[in-house]
């Protein structure tokens, strides 16, 4: 009886010590779920989800404070991925947060720009270069199309231009074949 109790107690002590050590040694910094959600979000940093960036939104989703359908740039596909990851039901994009638009980049009309630097301060990814009273320009490759530079511009010289289809970014379409009714009857 005593031996059994001792064995069980020893087991508890050893396992407890091991678990305690593991908790310290393999401690996970940060929330891995937030990282996973953040990886799905499009990183537009547009704030349309009503959070100041993609990461804050990811944190809010992980805490259960936000719905998964608040990200217009991610679109339905993004929502589907989030739904898969979190085991939640798919919801269509919430209308109050905006609509899914084709990917576009900001373009500054250099004839109108007065060099006020307001758009530079607004850009969440530092994709606008320029200095006070100097012409500004957008680095198109790094522009996420978040539209945050549009409202601060005092002369409305920034416009969004959709990225068109070119030979470089053209994609093969999903094979779709017309079914010939006559052949179908014959079959």
């Amino acid at each position, binding site marked *: 009886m005593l031996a059994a109790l001792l064995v069980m107690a020893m087991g508890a002590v050893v396992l407890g010590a091991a678990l305690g050590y593991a908790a310290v040694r393999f401690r996970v910094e940060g929330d891995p779920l937030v990282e996973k959600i*953040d990886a799905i*979000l*499009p*990183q*537009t*940093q547009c704030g349309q989800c009503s959070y100041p*960036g*993609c*990461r804050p939104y990811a944190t809010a989703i992980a805490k259960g404070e936000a719905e998964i359908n608040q990200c217009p740039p991610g679109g339905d596909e993004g929502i589907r991925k989030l739904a898969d990851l979190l085991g939640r039901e798919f919801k269509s994009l919430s209308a109050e947060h905006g609509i899914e638009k084709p990917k576009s980049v900001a373009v500054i009309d250099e004839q109108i720009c007065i060099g006020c630097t307001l758009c530079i301060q607004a850009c*969440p*990814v*530092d*994709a606008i270069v320029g200095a006070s009273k100097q012409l500004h320009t957008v680095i198109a*490759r*790094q522009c*996420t199309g978040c539209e945050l530079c549009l409202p601060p511009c005092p002369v409305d010289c920034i416009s969004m231009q959709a990225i068109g*289809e*070119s*030979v*470089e*970014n*053209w*994609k*093969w*379409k*999903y*094979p779709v*074949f017309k*079914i*010939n009714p006559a*052949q*179908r009857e014959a*079959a």
Partner: protein
Amino acid sequence: MTALQRLFKFNGGVKPAYNKEASTRLPIAVAPTPTLLVIPLHQSIGGMPRPLVKPGERVLKGQRIGGADGNVSSAVHASTSGTVIAVEMRLMPHTSGLSAMCVVIEPDGRDEWIPHGPFDFRGATPMQIHDYLRDSGVVGLGGAVFPSYLKLNPGKQRNLDTLVLNGAECEPFITCDDVLMRERAATILQGALIMRDMLGAGEVLIGIEDNKPEAIAAMEAAAHAVKTAAGESSIKLVSVPTLYPAGGAKQLIRVLTGIEVPHGKRSTDYGVQCFNVGTAYAIFEAIALGQPLISRIVTVAGNVGQPRNFEVLLGTPMRDLIALCGPLPDSDRVIMGGPMMGLRMPDDSVPVVKAANCVLVGSRGLFPPPPPEMPCIRCGECAKACPADLQPFELYWFARAKIFGKAQEYDLFDCIECGCCAYVCPSHIPLVDYYRFAKSEIWARELAKVSSDEARERYEFRMLREEREKQDHAAKLAAKAAARREKAAAAKTDAAKETATPEQDEKKALVAAALERVRAQKEQIQPENTINLTPEQVAEVAAIETRRAEIREMAKPHVWQDD
């Protein structure tokens, strides 16, 4: 010499009707210069070259009109002398039917060369060879148009054993390599020897399918001539069995050397490099003559009266070439390449580019519309036919269901899009269309992933920077305040009370210093109307002051009430 060499086999392959005889009956003809040359700037794998000419400029034959941009890119040149009419978007020889930047040249008919001469590659550094070949615009002419300078970089591949020259030309209808070997075998061998020397390769293996006896004979004669003239014995001619796609680089390497290049590796990792015979010819022209790549041999075949091979200036509209062969009235499509791997052109006005080995004219009679697609019955015929040792049916299911991650796990990107699986499929499933769809979706996603990762990094850096600036600002303010406190404390040390805590001391000192400042300011500012007053004025002021005091006294209770 057709050596008695042990040959190996690749898995699968098919034997479609070859249809090669018709276009080999006549020798290569030089296609006439068209009235307008439309030269696309982007003719190779990699970055889009930047235009180097402006509209209105006169260009000479062989003048560079597009400069290589980036690490993987190749120059383009004017195919003849003339005037640049426009640098604008024109319809590309591409399935999408989209336009891209082209240089439009109106030939002046003089065909005047830019000064050029041979390039001494033996005396040049590897970097000079690299730059020279890049600016000569030589790319792989078998159809993949990969810039050749990247494959001929001797710095990287010191221990290369074998240079494989690909003369297999396995795709039906296409005969441009066949006729090139028949007519210009000596030049091809010269080019091959140049490449061998650049790479430091031990031997040159030339693989030719055994359905081209004339080409084999011509190459054999040329190799014999080289051997007797220069004692060159490193060239070996190998006749390989006719089996589509024996002309695929990995397949030919496997047949000739037995080396199976695994997933994720390059043939150079195993000491083998492979070039098309047409590329060897272009290398000879670029190095020994100093002529950039401005023309190529193109087979015009299919639904035409007289199929034939032409030497065509790049930029010539396909329509002009087809007209030379007399297209039959029921022609309804133009395909660049062969029937197995070719790409359907948006129309016949698109120009001949470096990738165009064949202009195939089609009709409903020649290529009847495919029977309706039926469900996959899992017969496994496609896996038996796949020369890349893949499982096409698995890839098809994943591509069809848009499960791209799984498709990649099954090595979708090892698929060479040869079309063997679709050829043997009893359910007539256009498998390659599904693979192309899945591949381009995956590419697009990878690109989106890269750019979103970059955006995340930049956003996080911005957050960090803003936080740092905030902290810097706060630290600066704190330092200023501390300096002020110190000053005040120093002024007050004499009067400091011993009972007070240092904190109270500091505060009191600060308050005292501030009061002192206010007092000093007050002293400085004296209202001017109180100086130099007459006694009457002083009396008047005093009276007013007393009145004011009285009124204040009277108002007091009301103020309290208000409170």
